[in-house]
């Protein structure tokens, strides 16, 4: 176990290094044009001004030196980690760490809430659909799933806003006022529509996955054995069927939550939630490389950590899996 964790951690560091390197190359070298000009935006700029910008943010140094400065800022060590000398927003000089720390709670609230919603919706509907196969409930569940996987979040989000906020006025609309505490925002229901919009596609996807897994499991030989023992059908389904059908879902769930924590870009944008996803978008459009680097590596970090957690948890859930 110890050796396994050490090896996995080293591998994680390698992955994050590669992610940061590629992010750097893609931002600095791949698009046509000059990062300094992109930063300057549409303002009319003289060559001198561009030169000043370049100098201020270190673009006049050799590429390797530039990358080195950014890489050093990713080392988790006090004074180095996201240091303000390098990791500050090129547009308004706000430190990237400050942005991330203030925005992360919104993204976490949004992600975990949505995750709870899609599990609470997806698992029961999936189970009922599988058990009552070809019944009305199953058909309704599958229509829901089809709509869910087909409906884009931005469309669904506006639809929900139109009905529940504009027409019915049941729920608050977009935006979270600055300075309002998270607890208050949640209590006021500001997150309900974002949760539902974000969770809808996932719920549909999980419904289908759980239905499929459970149907497959219920035709396994060991389910026949369980029935042959004289167990009640309820016990056959919930003890023997679900145990096998839900275990693979753990993997999916871990990775999905990690992806959401990296920023639900569309949902945050539509509902104007000041989270990580929104910052990602602002950074990209503003030509703010330190911001892009910060959120990209953060998102990658969530994914690799979730990967590790899922693998460790899986070994507890499935006795056939061992750390090797």
């Amino acid at each position, binding site marked *: 176990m110890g050796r396994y964790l050490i090896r996995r951690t080293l591998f994680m560091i390698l992955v994050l290094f590669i992610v940061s390197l590629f992010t750097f190359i893609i931002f600095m070298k791949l698009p046509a044009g000059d990062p300094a000009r992109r930063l300057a935006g549409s303002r009319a700029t003289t060559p001198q001004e561009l030169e000043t910008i370049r100098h201020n943010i270190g673009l006049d140094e050799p590429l390797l030196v530039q990358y080195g400065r950014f890489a050093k800022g990713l080392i988790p060590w006090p004074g180095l980690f996201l240091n303000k000398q390098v990791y500050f927003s090129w547009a308004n000089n706000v430190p990237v760490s400050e942005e991330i720390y203030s925005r992360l709670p919104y993204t976490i609230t949004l992600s975990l809430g949505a995750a709870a919603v899609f599990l609470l919706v997806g698992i029961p509907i999936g189970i009922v659909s599988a058990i009552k196969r070809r019944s009305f409930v199953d058909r309704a569940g599958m229509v829901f799933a089809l709509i869910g996987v087909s409906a884009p979040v931005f469309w669904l989000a506006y639809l929900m806003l139109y009905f529940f906020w504009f027409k019915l006025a049941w729920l608050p609309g977009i935006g979270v006022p600055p300075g309002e505490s998270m607890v208050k925002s949640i209590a006021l229901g500001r997150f309900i529509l974002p949760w539902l919009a974000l969770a809808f596609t996932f719920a549909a996807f999980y419904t289908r996955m759980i239905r499929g897994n459970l149907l497959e499991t219920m035709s396994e030989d060991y389910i026949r054995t369980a*029935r042959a023992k004289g167990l009640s059908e309820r016990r056959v389904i919930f003890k023997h069927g679900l145990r096998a059908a839900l275990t693979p879902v753990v993997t999916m769930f871990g990775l999905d939550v990690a992806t959401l924590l990296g920023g639900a870009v569309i949902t945050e944008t539509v509902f104007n939630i000041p989270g990580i996803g929104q910052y990602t978008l602002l950074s990209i459009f503003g030509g703010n490389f330190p911001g892009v680097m910060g959120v990209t590596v953060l998102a990658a970090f969530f994914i690799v950590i979730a990967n590790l957690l899922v693998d460790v948890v899986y070994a507890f859930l499935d006795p056939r899996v061992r750390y090797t």
Partner: protein
Amino acid sequence: MTEPLLEVKDLTVHFPTEDGLVKAVDGISFSLEPGETLGVVGESGSGKSVSFLTVMGLIRSDQAVITGEVFFQGQDLLKLPVEEMRNIRGARISMIFQDPMTSLHPYYKVGTQISEAVRTHQKVSKQEAHDQAVEMLRKVGIPKPDERAKQYPHEFSGGMRQRAMIAMALSLNPDLLIADEPTTALDVTVQAQILDLIDRLKQEFNAAVVIITHDLGVVAEHCDTIQVMYAGKAVEFGDRHDIYYGSHHPYTWGLLRSIARLDADSNERLHPIKGLPPSLINVPPGCAFHPRCPYVMDICRTETPALLPSDGHHAAACHLSLADKERILKEEVMSRS
């Protein structure tokens, strides 16, 4: 005569499918005395598994059209409510299956899976059920049963898993054990061990046993009576001697000839039965075996032969005259040995 333990009367199991009605079991009748071992032999799709899954109540009327009667200790199982059938299943009738690799739940410990069966039917504590499970594992010849009970199925070999399945099936001391191809998925060396184990435990637990198999060779030593099935019907029924030395059905002859023999000339080829088992949707008219039968007569194509006893117990469903059967048996089937 004592009351039969199990008496099946004119059982049919038909599955409605999109392609038509699958006549998996089409009118079989037989009975089983307490303590008897019945071998049920036939190719894949002859209805042998389906008929006993129906006896177990694992195929129910919501999945198939079931008619006939299945009397077990005087009760018609087909008329029992689900709850009552569940109390019988696993306790008084139990079943083991073909593939022990997939028949145990991969996520639960072997001991837990056995004690779950015990606790389903008996009001005992977890510890008592666990002790019973360990004891059963010991009885089926698993070394260090207390350690093995704490292991998962993937830590068992195929033979050991089948032993564990048998332990589970016998843990409630059933009156009837149905073994559906218990050795098919196992190594040849393990097959004999498992069948011997079933024999021994049958004595110890005083249970009747049904062994379902496609291999006449496998059941030769272990069955009192044998029923040969073809296309959902019983085509021959008799005791072991009747079937092995005095069979009266061309299909059984085919099965006998297809047994591989050690003492045969090494140049001699196996004699498979020509053709394929019929579709159970379009069963051939008359005798279902007639398209593959080397002795086919005109009457076989139109009239279904009844399963008639020729001498007391032994019965075969074939239009050939007794004299012809005896002659063919002597000249063509037994001449090999």
